[in-house]
């Protein structure tokens, strides 16, 4: 068989170019194809966001973000109503496309080990209820009943019933196959180097040649910043390199998505029986690149905390670790058309971007095709970033 060479773009023109083949880009490309658009999706590869995701479905506010970025709490709170909807939407999406994401919505526990930590959860849960979330507080006795795997250090917890987990490897593969079935042209290992506004539409300069598109959606996570910059737009996405661990298979043990009230951790068991331990321990960026690499201090710290919380994990072997990139802006997603650049859309879901992926992709697809998203999109509009940039410039 003669080798298949991929050294040029399969087309030079398209209705919509989607940049980024993670969960947001794949979903968005599929939705737009469903609505009759000719869609070309370009993915640089080597990204470590959706492909490195650990499969948590987050709903309650993550204590990690609140601790690390107190100035962004207002932003998180504005985005909070999207999370329960996003989890519901995952289920709906799974059904619509006839897929199996190995999704389990068996609840998420944020565990406190001291009365002070529990007090933090009391305050947090009060605020979350005001914002419409369904959460409850469990004291030691109740916690032991529903989560006997937790060790003696657990003092109490906040339970959020609509949190859960899925298998991101299966999701990525099945969503990709669905997009291909709908006619999306996927170009792998191709990097968009810059965007150029033409009228109407845009020219994309890529490593495999140039492509013209009437509309462009940037779903490139941290890569969005440079792309937007190339066309004179401001989208300050920062990469947050994070560490993850996976164990060999164990019998069913940990039902919930487990977090900690004061420390960074997510802990859950996949349908393979493997336990995935992650939740915000830092990785490093390889010098001179945007490729994240593992930091041994995070590996040791992350699994030590896991063992403290679930002591029976002690004899389980870690068989692999990896690092991935989270995309951060200001606590909220950036969804919609860039100011002054008609046809250019941002699709940056915000913190816990994988959870928000399909829903935010649908919202952006609605905006791009002139439909009513049914959600007030103003809090997520890129407009606020322009204001921020102007303020910054004025202040100089």
């Amino acid at each position, binding site marked *: 068989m003669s080798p298949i060479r991929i050294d040029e773009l399969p087309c030079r023109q398209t209705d919509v170019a989607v940049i980024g083949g993670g969960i947001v880009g794949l979903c968005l490309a599929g939705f737009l194809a469903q609505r009759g658009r000719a869609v070309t999706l370009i993915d640089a590869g080597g990204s470590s966001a959706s492909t490195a995701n650990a499969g948590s479905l987050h709903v309650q506010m993550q204590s990690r973000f609140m601790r690390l970025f107190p100035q962004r709490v207002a932003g998180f709170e504005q985005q909070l109503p999207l999370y329960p909807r996003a989890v519901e939407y995952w289920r709906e999406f799974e059904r619509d496309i006839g897929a199996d994401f190995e999704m389990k919505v068996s609840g998420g526990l944020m565990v406190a080990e001291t009365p002070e930590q529990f007090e933090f959860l009391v305050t947090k849960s009060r605020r979350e209820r005001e914002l419409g979330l369904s959460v409850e507080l469990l004291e030691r006795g109740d916690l032991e009943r529903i989560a006997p795997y937790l060790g003696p250090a657990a003092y109490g917890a906040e339970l959020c019933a609509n949190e859960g987990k899925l298998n991101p490897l299966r999701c990525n593969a099945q969503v990709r196959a669905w997009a291909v079935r709908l006619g999306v042209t996927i170009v792998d290992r191709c990097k968009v180097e810059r965007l150029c506004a033409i009228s109407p539409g845009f020219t994309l300069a890529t490593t495999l040649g140039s492509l013209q598109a009437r509309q462009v959606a940037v779903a490139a996570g941290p890569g969005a910043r440079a792309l937007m910059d190339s066309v004179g737009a401001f989208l300050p996405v920062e990469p947050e390199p994070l560490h993850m661990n996976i164990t060999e298979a164990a019998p069913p043990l940990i039902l919930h998505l487990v977090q900690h009230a004061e420390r960074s951790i997510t802990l859950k068991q996949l349908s393979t029986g493997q336990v995935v331990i992650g939740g915000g321990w830092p990785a490093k960026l390889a010098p001179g690149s945007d490729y994240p690499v593992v930091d041994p201090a995070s590996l040791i*710290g992350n699994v030590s905390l896991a063992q403290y919380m679930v002591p029976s994990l002690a004899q389980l072997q870690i068989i692999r670790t990896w690092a991935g990139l989270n995309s951060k802006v200001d606590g909220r997603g950036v969804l919609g058309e860039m100011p002054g650049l008609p046809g250019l859309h941002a699709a940056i879901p915000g913190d816990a971007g994988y959870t928000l992926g399909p829903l935010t992709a649908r919202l952006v697809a609605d905006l791009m095709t002139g439909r009513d998203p049914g959600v007030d999109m103003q809090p997520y509009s890129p407009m606020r970033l322009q204001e921020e940039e102007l303020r910054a410039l004025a202040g100089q």
Partner: protein
Amino acid sequence: MTQTIPIEFEGATLRARPGETLAATLTAHGVQDFRTTASGQPRGVFCGMGVCQDCLVEVDGVANRRACMTKIEKPISVRRGAHGRPLIAPSPSAGVNVSGAFTGTDEPELREPELLVIGAGPGGLSAALFAQRAGVGVTVLDERSQAGGQYYKQLGVSEQGVLPADAQHRRGAALIDAARKAGVQIIADAPVWGAFEPKEFIATVRGRSIRFRPAACIVAAGAYERGWQVPGWTLPGVMTTGAAQTLWRTSRRLPGQRVLIAGNGPLNLQLAAELLSGGATVAAVVEAAPAPGLGSLDSLLTMGLAAPALVAEGVGYLRTVKRHGVRIVNDTVIESIEKVAGGLSVTLAHVSGATLTQRIEVDVVCLGYGFEPANELLRALGCVHDFDPRRRQLATRRDETGLTSIAGVYALGDCTGLGGAKAALAEGVVVGAAVAAALGHAPAETLMHERARAVNELARQRRFQHALWNVYASPLTAPRERCGDTVICRCEEVTFAQLDAALDEGLSTAGAIKRRTRIGMGRCQGRYCAPVLDEIVCERFGRSRDEMSGFAPRVPVKPVTIAELSGRGSGS
């Protein structure tokens, strides 16, 4: 008769020799089937050296212990491994704080030896010995309970009542002894599971993680055998040539009574001679290369001139094999292996593709189809590697002193691309001398003479090795049919058909196919499937293999328990 140690195994009591591996005890008692996989398939000893993670059993209630790395020192209770065995509840004395807030991680102990050598095989030991004698403070780490590596494989059991140690054992023992006497600190049972930039290593020593930040390091991690992905290659009773040799050379146990040895290279002949001396029947030695004829005369002559002692050894093995009437079948490979009532039934094929009609029935099949370098630590550090198309493997880029692309990181021996044990021995002296000089030590004149001799010896050994490769050159370097239900990834039980389906979906990189199919996601970290996958993907897309085309290296390079990572183990 020496004392034995009783081992409880699935209700029976087996008699183990003190110091042998659990894999050897079980094998000696006719047990081939050590565990079942997630899909219910039986597995047994395959690599015999701690790489493949297939001989996992439950030892005293702890699941997933490698039988081949478990040394018998006291009575133990063993069960076959099963997928997802329940976890044992931690004992209150396990050192885990019972209540209150998590107070942070215990910082692992940090050691800063002047020189850290990873691997106590011929190359690592010889480098360590030279550097120590030149005044360097050297620590050597090795995963095994005994130094010596895969070439010297030291006898672990008492010589009483078994065939005593041979010259190869004794040369190894002498080298280990010399290194110890010179002051080299050799730490055994110390798997190095992580390497981090710029040159930090973490190993598990007696249940705890220790960080090593040496001034300089030498990675001499050796090699492991390639897989031969044909139908039946995962069956219990099918093991590598090295695994069978380890059973015999360390524990004086035979892998089985009737053995077929197949592969490409001289080690298979050595194994045949050794198993014959232990009383086994060798059904045949099946060699992929043609029989040496007039065309190999030049190469044979070069070998004879470069390393007469090695040639004499080889001739000795050949004589033993011939004396026992063992057939050497050239130009032939294994096509498939099937489980039958009496053992394993093997189908052979000519390298041209024609299937041989006669099947061979044996207890054990040994596969020795060449080696892959154990370069995972070097790759994790970011050392530059080049693809060597002739040997079909990555070779570590080094200068003539063994220095890699990273300052202070040296590498030698088979982990850098194959050269053999004798070359590694000589290379150890050359690299040891370079490291000593780089660390500011001036070796005595006698040592420098030794170095000069080693330079010549290394050149001779390399000439020998090249000629040897010419003699053993085979037109067929992989099974002809890589398709269908044949397993490519042992750990995750991924088949070639699944790989083909992923390729047909348009996936074009090893990483994307890994995430799609789970190939390479298991305990062994893709040691056997990764090179095959890389080869297939690159061929399909017209790319050449390089250090970026396969999987990215991942820590831990060998599985490590959470207790060992946290330093709060139940056993320590």
